[in-house]
């Protein structure tokens, strides 16, 4: 690390461009101002009049539950999305919604997934797309000098010639920061930078962040881990359901206060008696998948709704995939109604009475080239055929029954499933499993990307199924859904079940505390 000058001038090695001297911002004033930003996606209001600013040399933490609007705000700041209303100003200039313009204005974003070219070395990645040339040929020497200058600031221990694919996630992240530094940098947005780092790597990252801070760079820090946030942040902004809950100095807050801001007070416990439950439908013992899931044991009884809560990346979908057989696991045992289910065999799971509504319906559930009715009957082809011949009569009976039961709105069962709205597509996926009458249904974010009306309908369907004796394993990031539907909640954190909350002890705050602190 270079020695920091004591003068008020920023360290010139950080390449604060001469544009800054042309229009000097007020000291400690905001570099980036997002004013009154609104952004809607079909069916979802992702951001609603949110204002946010980043000052020189501060770490500003942006917090919120899954789906609170953090990612949308980050993408708007990076110029990837255009806001419906509101503006982004950087150093008093209006920032157009264009990634190149954000780049030019010195707003760099480090996304959760790394954006390095795997087969290029560190130096090439640092100067990606801006390789210095002489006589139209890339000048390796200049490239090394320039890359070294940037790299020395954040990770002097790395070699310039290591291929990016050989870097650890932590080192990859530092290379990305070096890339940001090799250009004029004003604001660095870091989206969950610590999610894949070990504690010593986090310490190293934080010391880099503090150096950047001292050089007058504004940092937006998105994280779910409150403990970290309190270590590094100067100010905290909390979003909930696309709205700004508040921006406060870190000294004015504590963990409980932040959790209350994230969860909101609107979520009251809905008192309801525990459902009648029957025999154990699902019994998972010691399920382990190297690096992802650690010794998971759980049971779900007939007629019971068990919810897996936790943050994105806690391993909930991986667990669902392993139980159903979409992915293999290393050790452990899954029993359905007492019968053992071998790993990696969805066909067998289905025969034992398992149904699975996966998280990403476009990728994992719908065959978009097929009709609504073909999609809805995909899991019951054995029941609508005899000697391998399909019975179109049985097929249309099946779709008619399900369309009525689930109130699927469609012009005809023969249109392509891609022609339906998100909510109706999700109902088609549900219909596929209801037509099989499963004993156990695994639902992974069943109301994701679905409008409010369909959300309520799907919740009703889940309750109805449980009342009919179907065992339900629900994965949901929506607190009202978790609190409103579950009999029991299992909270996951980094591939482990860290808490089991009974209906009586259930509250959004409790879930959040376990989910964020492990």
């Amino acid at each position: 690390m270079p020695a920091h000058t004591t003068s008020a001038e920023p360290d010139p090695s950080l390449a604060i461009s001469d544009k800054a001297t042309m229009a000097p911002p007020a000291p400690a004033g905001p570099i980036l101002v997002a004013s009154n930003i609104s952004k809607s996606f079909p069916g979802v209001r992702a951001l609603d009049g949110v204002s946010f600013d980043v000052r020189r040399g501060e770490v500003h933490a942006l917090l919120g539950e899954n789906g609170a609007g953090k990612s949308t705000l980050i993408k708007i700041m990076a110029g990837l999305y255009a806001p419906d209303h509101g503006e982004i100003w950087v150093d008093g200039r209006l920032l157009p919604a264009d990634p190149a313009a954000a780049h030019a204005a010195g707003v760099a974003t480090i996304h959760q997934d790394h954006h390095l070219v795997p087969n290029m070395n560190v130096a090439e990645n640092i100067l990606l797309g801006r390789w210095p040339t002489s006589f139209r040929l890339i000048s390796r020497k200049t490239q090394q000098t320039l890359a070294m200058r940037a790299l020395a600031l954040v990770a002097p221990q790395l070699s310039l010639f290591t291929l990016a694919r050989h870097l650890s996630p932590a080192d990859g992240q530092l290379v990305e920061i070096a890339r940001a530094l090799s250009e004029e940098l004003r604001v660095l947005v870091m989206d969950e930078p610590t999610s894949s780092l070990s504690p010593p790597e986090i310490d190293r990252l934080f010391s880099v962040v503090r150096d950047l801070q001292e050089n007058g760079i504004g940092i937006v820090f998105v994280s779910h881990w409150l403990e970290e946030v309190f270590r590094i942040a100067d100010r905290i902004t909390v979003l909930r359901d696309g709205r700004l809950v508040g921006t406060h100095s870190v000294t004015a807050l504590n963990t409980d206060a932040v959790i209350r801001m994230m969860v909101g007070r609107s979520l009251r416990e809905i008192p309801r008696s525990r459902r009648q439950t029957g025999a154990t439908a699902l019994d998972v013992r010691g399920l382990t998948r190297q690096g992802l899931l650690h010794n998971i044991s759980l049971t779900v009884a007939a007629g019971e709704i068990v919810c897996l809560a936790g943050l994105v990346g806690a391993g909930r979908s991986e667990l669902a995939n392993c139980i159903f057989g979409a992915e293999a696991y290393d050790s452990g045992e899954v029993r359905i109604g007492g019968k053992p289910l071998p790993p990696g065999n969805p066909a067998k799971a289905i025969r034992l009475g398992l149904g699975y509504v996966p998280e990403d319906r476009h990728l994992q559930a719908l065959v978009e080239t097929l009709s609504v009715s073909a999609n809805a009957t995909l899991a019951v082809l054995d029941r609508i055929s005899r000697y391998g011949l399909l019975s179109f009569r049985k097929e249309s009976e099946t779709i008619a029954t399900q369309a009525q039961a689930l109130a699927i709105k469609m012009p005809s069962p023969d249109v392509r499933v891609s022609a339906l709205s998100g909510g109706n597509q999700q109902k088609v996926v549900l219909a596929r499993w209801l037509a099989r009458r499963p004993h156990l249904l695994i639902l992974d974010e069943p109301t994701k990307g679905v409008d409010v009306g369909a959300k309520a309908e799907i919740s009703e369907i889940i309750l109805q199924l449980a009342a009919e004796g179907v065992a339900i394993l629900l994965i949901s990031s929506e607190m009202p859904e978790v609190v409103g539907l579950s009999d029991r909640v299992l909270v996951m954190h980094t591939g482990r079940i860290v808490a089991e909350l009974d209906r009586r002890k259930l509250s959004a705050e409790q879930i959040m505390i376990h989910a964020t602190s492990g």
Partner: protein
Amino acid sequence: MRPVVSHRHRQPDGAAAERRTVRATSRARRQAAGQAWFDAIQSFGLLVIIVTGSVVLGLATPVFFTAANLENVLYSATVIAVVAIGETFVILVAGIDLSVSAVLALSSVLSVGLVVNQGLPPAMGIVAALLAGAIIGVANGLACTKLRITALIVTLASLSIARGLAFIYSGGENIAPVPHFFVFAQNAKVLGFPVIILFTLLLALLAHLGLTRTRFGRSVYATGGNALAARLSGIRTDRVVLGCYAISGITAAIGGLMITARLEAGAATSGEGMELTVIAAVVIGGTSLFGGEGSIGGMLLGVLLLGLVQNAVDLLNVPPNYDSVVSGFVIAGAAALDVYRRYYVEASLRRRTGTGKQASPSASNSRALESSEQASVLPDSLHDQATGGMSK
């Protein structure tokens, strides 16, 4: 044909909420109509091209509409059509089978050679040829599903192996005479129709029914359309893919028997380069190389169109070296139509439903593009930043 309602006639947005559902439904219905309409254009369009092409050709040369010539066109289309049946199955599961022409040659030499050289009864020769096709098909399928090697490479390898085996077995010589059955089948007619043509149509009909009315056929479309979704719905996708390659091996072997009957010899050189014609016919017929979409009927039209082009080249005395240029343009045009259909239909589907997440980023991208034009006036040179911006 139903007219597609143009965008200009759409009502402005912002109407009452309850009306929105109604409109969404009618919008979806309109889309479905649009989709069906476009699908129809592809098949119907082919038919129109074939009919007008025939008329033009008939006017250009009196030979075209003679029974002998038409029979010739159909006869030469039969082998390609039969091989293309199996290829359709493979392409429907998003695979590709390049080995068909070599399997055809191997089947050809085995079916005659085993009788002439090894003294097997003719029926056994035919069974052995079909078995060889099935074995190569299964091997292709296993390599694709179990070893997870790309279909293109797997079948390129088996193309080379099967053709090599055919040459080794025959020593590069044509094997003759063919058993009497081949001569008989080639010349047989039922009510004046050549049996070979009827047989081809029968196979096509069976394949069509297999694809549209059986559990296996439905699984083929599902696997090709979204293999992961199909597997998570309990379909054993590996078996489905394996089955498709086996079918392709068998139909290629049947094609080998048919070409043997036509040439009256078992030849290791038969059908060289035919795999590309077969794939072209399938794709021209509207089967998507991405899998999940297509039909046997479309494939037959594709075969017919290619046969017609070949016939035109022959009849119109196009210099022989130009014929491949002409077929090349026909293939390129058909493939362009497929891509156009994919993008046009799907983009308009998204635009009109406005559902799903895909709709929003594309909308904001287009907005971002507009604003990037405004942004371009800003002084922005990456090169300057890389060199000048790093001063010190």
